[in-house]
């Protein structure tokens, strides 16, 4: 589903964000991207969205080299990728229903699709009774669930999450993770960048660790920090 071939990225100010990364992520996989701040996790996700271009190497999504897409095709690429962020990025003047519907309206889906899909997805994230509320009337966990609903309402092939639990308490993190797992079970590939050690350790999913732009670990059923596993 996602393939990095010797990808390197250096920003204009000289910061080397990714160095010679090669990896494959299969359809339906759940991958944790871990590493300290500045290790290149966000760059990794931005490359997948084609918000940035690699300096070297190429990135394939669903078998296509996304570097070769013409600029006007980029929006269509993004329709296959859902995104969730640490800061939710909801529109403050739209209610829950409208925020989720916006993702469908923004790509020109007809009203009938909006009216059938949005309640369905709101039920999935458990916010049916809050659909008329504005974001500021919700808790952080609820807001993030709205954001997940928005990312998933279009049934993308890939879901990217950039520290989705970064602003949440453990129990809310828990419910977000449960949601992401559920989405993953529908066959959606999930790539999640995170700092949350407890989560990663408990989930036992594939872990890719970055350090200063280099991939130092790719473990099928990993934990957050490998050395902590052996320290007794």
């Amino acid at each position, binding site marked *: 589903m996602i393939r990095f071939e010797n990808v390197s990225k250096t920003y204009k100010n000289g910061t080397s964000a990714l160095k010679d990364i090669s990896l494959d992520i299969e359809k339906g996989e759940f991958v944790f991207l871990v590493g300290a701040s500045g290790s290149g996790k966000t760059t990794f996700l931005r490359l997948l*969205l*084609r*918000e940035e271009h690699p300096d070297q190497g190429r990135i394939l999504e669903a078998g296509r080299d996304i570097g070769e897409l013409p*600029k*006007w095709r*980029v*929006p*269509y*690429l*993004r*329709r*296959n*990728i859902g*995104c969730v962020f640490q800061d939710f*990025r909801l*529109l*403050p003047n739209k209610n829950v229903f409208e925020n989720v519907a*916006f*993702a469908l*309206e*923004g*790509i*020109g*889906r*007809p*009203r009938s699709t909006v009216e059938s899909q949005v309640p369905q997805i709101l039920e999935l994230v458990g916010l049916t009774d809050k659909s008329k509320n504005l974001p500021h009337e919700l808790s952080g966990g609820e807001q993030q669930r709205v954001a997940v609903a*928005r990312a998933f309402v*279009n049934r993308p092939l890939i879901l990217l999450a950039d520290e989705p639990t970064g602003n949440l308490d453990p129990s809310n993190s828990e419910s977000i993770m449960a949601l992401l797992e559920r989405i993953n079970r529908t066959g959606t590939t999930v790539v999640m960048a995170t700092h949350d050690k407890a989560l990663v350790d408990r989930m036992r999913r594939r872990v890719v660790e970055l350090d200063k732009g280099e991939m130092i670990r790719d473990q099928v059923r990993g934990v957050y920090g490998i050395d902590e596993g052996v320290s007794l």
Partner: protein
Amino acid sequence: MRVYFRYAFKETFSNLWRNRMMTIAAVLTVAVSLSLVGSALLLKQSAAQASAQWQQGTRVTVWMQPTASSSEINGIRTQLANLPIVKSCVFYTQAQDYKEALQLLPPSESDVLKVTDMPSSFRCIPTVPSDAFVVESTFATQPGVYKVTAPEQQIREMNRAIRILQIVFLALAAVLLLSATVLILNTIRMAIFARRREVSVMKLVGATNWFIRIPYITEGFIQGLLGSIVAMLAVTALHTWYPLHNEFQLNTSALVGTNAVVLIVGVVIGSVGSAIAIRRFLDV
């Protein structure tokens, strides 16, 4: 498609309403500048028409000396008759000219005038209006001729005055049109800036650039359109009330043409201004 139509419509009008002060400023600037452009165009057309009409009836008047002998008068008459550039001539005797002068001059001046002071004259119509000058240069120095006058000179001066006026109008209009474009650009930029979160979310979910762009371009288009409607009203009012004299009165087709120019310039300015404004925000 229908969904998008509704969406674009809603976005456009909520943007216009949200930035209504800037919208009013932009619309008024467009209106003022386009009114000037329209007036300049009308002025040009009506001046051209008036001078054509005057020239149609151009007369060259050959004034004889009051003391000119009848042989001198006859000599001029024959020459005028043989000159191909002169279409026709009418001879006014001293008595006829005196009568005309009495009508034209105020009593204080005409009272001291005597018939014998009056020159007799030939009122001639040249075949081609611009030949009036040739007639003037040919006859001014002939014996018995007092003076040759042609209105050509006045027409020329009038035309020059109108041309200068027109240049001033157009220069003003150009400056104002530029400021109108910048104002529209600025309103759109503000509108986009106010909604940058929405724009970024739209880009994130995969909205195409045109999808995002069209409401803003429509907004600029409407600002230009409103401005040009006001300007068209002003131009029409000018067309109706300004004519000092029948000769300046233009027909309706000239008005329609001018209004069409005003309308097109207005909507182009609006659309182009907003298209420029939005470019920077949509870089992927």
